[in-house]
């Protein structure tokens, strides 16, 4: 055979290979690689299984690209016939089925309803558990303990803020019965919710070692019942307080002056204020904004999986670039129903810690911290001199409007 014939045969063979009908391009060939093959290519040393390095990296909390495992969930097209050995598995081995469940791609039908019923495994829980038992408890306790310590220090240094002038013996109505009812509805429920919330968060770590599992179980069940059901009173109180006092808490020019003078702490005398001074307005808006956030995340927890709100919020935050700007990277926009609940729980706790700290300060100044302040929410009537000192503009407005608002001294209840 001549060299020419050899060359002809080779060229023809190459042409046939290149021109075969339906021949795939290089890209398509890559796409057609079976998942198992792709996994083997990704982890040749283990034949497609995860390596020790993968496991260690995951245990160190590092991001591991697990696509090579995620996609290996069986191949129905290459399944043995139903009558053949292993045919009933439908082309997926047991590990393939477990992987599909593990990564949420299995086609699952559940007898129970609800969005979470078909998520049999979710791996987003460990960081939440660790965060909840670690930094959340630690820094939450620091915040509350630190606030109490600061208030105690303030009390030791400054003592009780007394009424400077001579008491007149006359009272002026500061809050009517409805206002006080709304305040105490909010305040009472908040204290109960705060206490039961702290039991739920810290109980496993600190109360079980003291009371034992059985006793804590009863306490935890009771706490949960109380926390869930008292929440409605809190929400009602929040709405009442907002409606009753929002007008009086709109910022105005007097607030700047009040803040510049540190509410009277940085100067001698008292900066003028209307019904609410700037400090009270800060408390009011903290209660409204943080309270609303706690209520919304609480509703999400009260009706599990029905009110997911974090994935959509993260999507919007990512779009404006805020998390990236503060170094948090891109926040997850796809999450399992359980992860939504985990974020809701953390947010609920973090915001609650902040509001509890704010309320500690509010309780302090409204009770031991200032003479005459508690009367405003106690029986609703305050000493006229106190009102002149702390809310001079309000008293002037009131006096101008209705001279009858002042009445004779009545003994405190």
């Amino acid at each position, binding site marked *: 055979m001549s060299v020419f014939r050899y060359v002809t045969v080779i060229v023809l063979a190459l042409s046939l290979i290149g021109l075969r009908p339906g021949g795939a391009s290089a890209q398509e060939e890559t796409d057609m690689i079976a998942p198992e093959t792709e996994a083997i290519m990704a982890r040749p040393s283990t034949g497609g299984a995860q390596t020790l390095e993968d496991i260690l990296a995951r245990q160190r909390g590092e991001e591991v690209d697990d696509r090579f495992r995620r996609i290996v969930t069986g191949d129905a097209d290459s399944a043995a016939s139903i009558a053949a050995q292993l045919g009933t598995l439908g082309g997926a081995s047991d590990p393939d089925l477990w992987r599909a469940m593990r990564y949420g791609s299995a086609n699952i039908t559940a*007898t*129970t*309803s*609800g969005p*979470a*019923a078909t998520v049999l495994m979710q791996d987003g829980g460990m960081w939440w558990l660790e965060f909840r038992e670690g930094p959340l408890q630690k820094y939450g306790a620091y915040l509350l303990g630190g606030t109490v310590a600061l208030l105690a220090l303030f009390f030791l240094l400054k003592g009780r803020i007394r009424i400077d002038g001579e008491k007149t013996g006359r009272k002026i109505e500061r809050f009517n*019965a*409805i206002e*006080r*009812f*709304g*305040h*105490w*509805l909010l*305040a*009472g*429920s908040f204290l*109960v919710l705060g206490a039961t919330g702290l039991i739920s968060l810290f109980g496993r770590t600190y109360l079980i070692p003291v009371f034992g599992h059985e006793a804590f179980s009863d306490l935890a069940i009771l706490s949960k*019942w*109380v926390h*869930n*059901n*008292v929440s*409605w*009173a809190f929400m*009602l*109180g929040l709405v009442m307080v907002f409606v009753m006092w929002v007008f009086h808490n709109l910022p105005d020019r007097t607030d700047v002056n009040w803040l510049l003078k540190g509410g009277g702490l940085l100067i001698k005398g008292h900066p003028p204020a209307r019904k609410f001074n700037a400090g009270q307005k800060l408390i009011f808006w903290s209660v409204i904004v943080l309270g609303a956030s706690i209520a919304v995340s609480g509703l999400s927890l009260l*009706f*599990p999986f029905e009110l997911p709100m974090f994935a959509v919020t993260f999507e919007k935050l990512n779009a404006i670039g805020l998390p990236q700007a503060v170094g948090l990277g891109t926040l997850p926009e796809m999450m399992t129903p359980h992860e939504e609940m985990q974020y809701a729980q953390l947010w609920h706790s973090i915001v609650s810690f902040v509001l509890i700290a704010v309320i500690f300060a509010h309780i302090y100044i409204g009770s031991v911290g200032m003479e005459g302040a508690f009367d405003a*929410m*106690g*029986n*609703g009537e305050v000493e006229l001199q106190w009102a002149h000192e702390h809310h001079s503009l309000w008293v002037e407005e009131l006096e101008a409007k209705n001279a009858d608002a002042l009445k004779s001294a009545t003994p405190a*209840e």
Partner: protein
Amino acid sequence: MKAALTAFVAIALIAFGANLVLQNLGFSAEDVASGPSVRLGD
């Protein structure tokens, strides 16, 4: 302190009322997350 005491009583009433209403409307965890084919409790 009458307003405060009334509010505290209201908190308790709202809590029991809310629980009663939500249970009757089928919002208990058993009703929401379970089905007739699931036996809970004893």
